[in-house]
């Protein structure tokens, strides 16, 4: 952008591109309060015997907390579709790593883990 073009173009460009998405502060405080509440819920629920469901409850709460951080603190909710797509791809890839490997270990009890 040559400065010779003057303030007009300059101003127009500014208006067009530099819209920082300003999230109201109360959103952050609300998300923070929710995250803290969920932290103590997960700590307290872990002391109740839910049988095999303990781990699922713990992971569900962790996934919910992580989603809140990603969407609001990391601004993904307000990001471009390309950014959203990349984020989803990343976690999809992680789920491939975890689920495909664990599917073997869960269903084929004769398979050992290294060291056993």
């Amino acid at each position: 952008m040559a400065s010779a073009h003057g303030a007009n173009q300059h101003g127009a460009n500014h208006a067009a591109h530099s819209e920082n998405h300003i999230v109201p502060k109360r959103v952050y405080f609300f998300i923070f309060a929710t995250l803290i509440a969920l932290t103590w819920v997960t700590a307290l629920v872990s002391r109740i015997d839910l049988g095999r469901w303990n781990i699922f409850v713990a992971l569900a709460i962790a996934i919910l907390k992580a989603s809140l951080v990603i969407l609001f603190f990391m601004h993904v909710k307000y990001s471009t579709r390309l950014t959203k797509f990349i984020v989803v791809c990343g976690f999809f890839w992680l789920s491939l790593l975890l689920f495909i490997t664990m599917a073997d270990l869960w269903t084929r009890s004769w398979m050992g883990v290294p060291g056993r």
Partner: protein
Amino acid sequence: MDTNVADAPEIANPSALQHHFENAEQQRDASTIGMWSFLLTEIMFFGGLFLAYFAYRQAYPLAFASASLKTDLWLGAANTTVLIGSSLTMALAVHFAAIGKRQLLVLFLILTLILGGVFLGVKAYEYHDKWVHHEIPGPHFECEGCVDAQHTQLFFSLYFGMTGLHASHMIIGAGILLVLIWQAYKGKFTPDWYTPIENFGLYWHFVDIVWIFLFPLLYLIDRSGRGLT
């Protein structure tokens, strides 16, 4: 901030718009995507450790359950609270960078650094506690009252590996924060260009997310003691 358009620093500041970008929006999107690409490699980096954790927990459930009881539930929960608090102060720091409040930006970066330091301090205390009780895998390892004590070493190896990698990310983050605090104090960041603050925020929140999973997986395996009776 709209009134600043006339003397917008994006021209004055050479770092504002690189010549190979069409406009600042494209530049910002590119840097956000670049940062996320880095974070995806980090997700896979930690993902390998999480996979090892799930595989060995599946193989030795009793050892993992009894070793997990050696961690301090309330210290872990308190530390989670501290770390989420540091994420809040970081999110607010990015907010103040975006609206051009330099002093508040510096203040909230410092608060983030302090909360990160508290987290690491508590972690160091927990490590020391493990050290004193010989709960470090190796020739002098002991796990008093543990079921399948031999394999509890696997839990503690993963515990130190995962929390250690997490802590090293925080130490690196604290180092970067020191630089950012200095730059922010010097007035390097404006509402038109504060990409380092924004991207560091992404990094800091990512480290928070890792801990959000580490806490239930390491501290909360079998708190009701069901599996061990």
